[in-house]
């Protein structure tokens, strides 16, 4: 338990969980519901592709694609993108690509369902939209997130939401296999002092 509560991410900071907001079952059910909503909205999965945002969105996108396949009995193209090179804060802070983009299909004319764990300022999604536009013209882009925590800085809204979670700006939200937790990020030094 202690290992999980104190995940080291982002580097240099330690996440201290204060409260569990969703457990693993609730996350699974939310994904199930989102999957059905995607099928309903798009009247099937004909042109749908699922793209996870590195790194938090990728495991969710994997699970979502698996559920979609179960529901409709057809395989859904699955990819991932890293948006580091499209961020608007390059040069303001250290920006590193987390993982290599893997989009093994043409997005022209497809309905791209972007998947991320937490929607916050909207800047990552903006960068993702630019990264997608560089690959072609999708018929539509839809956004699925497990948690919408508010505090948008851009006119971006999700199409499918696991849970709307009001937060303070200085709080942090972690989505993992065990569920969703809310807490604070602390520097390693502060954490040692507290102990």
């Amino acid at each position, binding site marked *: 338990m202690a290992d999980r509560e104190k995940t080291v991410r*982002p*580097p*240099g*900071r330690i996440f201290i969980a204060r409260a569990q907001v969703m457990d693993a079952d609730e996350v699974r059910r939310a994904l199930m519901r989102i999957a059905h909503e995607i099928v309903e909205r798009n009247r099937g999965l004909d042109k749908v592709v699922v793209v996870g945002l590195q790194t938090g969105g990728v495991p969710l996108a994997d699970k979502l694609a698996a559920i979609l396949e179960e529901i409709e009995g057809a395989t859904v193209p699955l990819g991932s993108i*890293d948006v*580091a*090179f*499209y961020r608007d*804060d*390059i*040069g*303001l*802070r*250290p*920006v*590193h*690509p987390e993982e*290599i*983009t*893997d989009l093994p299909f043409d997005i022209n004319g497809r309905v791209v369902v972007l998947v991320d764990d937490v929607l916050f*300022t909207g800047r990552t999604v903006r960068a993702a939209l*630019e990264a997608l536009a*560089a*690959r072609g013209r999708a018929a539509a882009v839809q956004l699925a997130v497990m948690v919408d925590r508010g*505090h948008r800085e851009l006119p971006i809204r999700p199409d499918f939401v696991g849970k709307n979670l009001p937060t303070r*700006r*200085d709080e*942090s939200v972690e989505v993992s296999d065990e569920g969703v937790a809310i807490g*604070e*990020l602390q520097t390693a030094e502060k954490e040692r002092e507290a102990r």
Partner: protein
Amino acid sequence: MSIDELLEVRRAPAARHLLSINDLNREGILEIMRLSDAFAEVSERPIPKVPALRGRTVATVFMEPSTRTRLSFETAAKRLSADTMTFTAATSATVKGESLRDTVETIDAMGIDAMVIRHHASGAPLRVTDWIGASVINAGDGTHEHPTQALLDCYTILETLRSRRGGDEPHDLSGLRIAIVGDIKHSRVARSDVLAFAALGAEVVLVAPPTLMPASLEGWPVQAAGDFDAVLGELDVVYLLRIQAERLGEVLLPSLDEYHWRYGLTRARAAALKKDALIMHPGPMIRGVEISPDVADLPASLVTRQVRNGVLVRMAVLFHLLGSGEI
């Protein structure tokens, strides 16, 4: 804690310039390798370009002739959406007698973010860092260093090993035995390669005629061999340096034919190599001197792969210096 503080999780890299492989420790080299992987994916796209350095300007200042390195840096900058400026000594005020300091200060005053500099004097890029505010990238200085060449060499070896083994491994060069053959004494490529290969855990052997071996190898993480044939069978990588014909006049080298016979990668030597040994050369390659014409075209030869990877690695270096921290 504000969002800005939250975002400021990783400190900006200490290095603002790349003058020597020593400016990047092992971790820094590995970071460039990871970034290069990301840019390899970018380069395979129909439009191989990202907006990462939009609005930045990269000036290439070449006081010594070089086409491939300059083109490679300019391509890299353009694929990152940076603007480029080109300065070559032959077409500039240098021929009218302008000093290096005045030249670089003038270019800096036009508003640039990085200067890629090649100069015939060792240490010139270091001097330039005192004069200008932009990041300085050494593209070869005298007989000192050529760090981006060494980075692209490391990347090329790693990439080739990974594609052969069909996985993500290996992450470094440990366990490999690499021979650098040729004019070690005057080679900036050799200096950077020795540091980079050793930092990634390789064993480095230098092979050269006594006249082209540095006077002392003290402090260098290398072994020396005078006889190429004696080490052939144990090498994983043969790295051939260009023999600079201008050295011939210096009585260091009796003749190119003799060099080829004793230190060139002839067909017979290529046959004595391990089956999976790699052959590398920084270019421009003089067929018939350091390498025999047909050996240069063997599948083991990575020469064109090195050129392709040069662009990726230089994108990584530019992004590392300009994109990942406070300016």
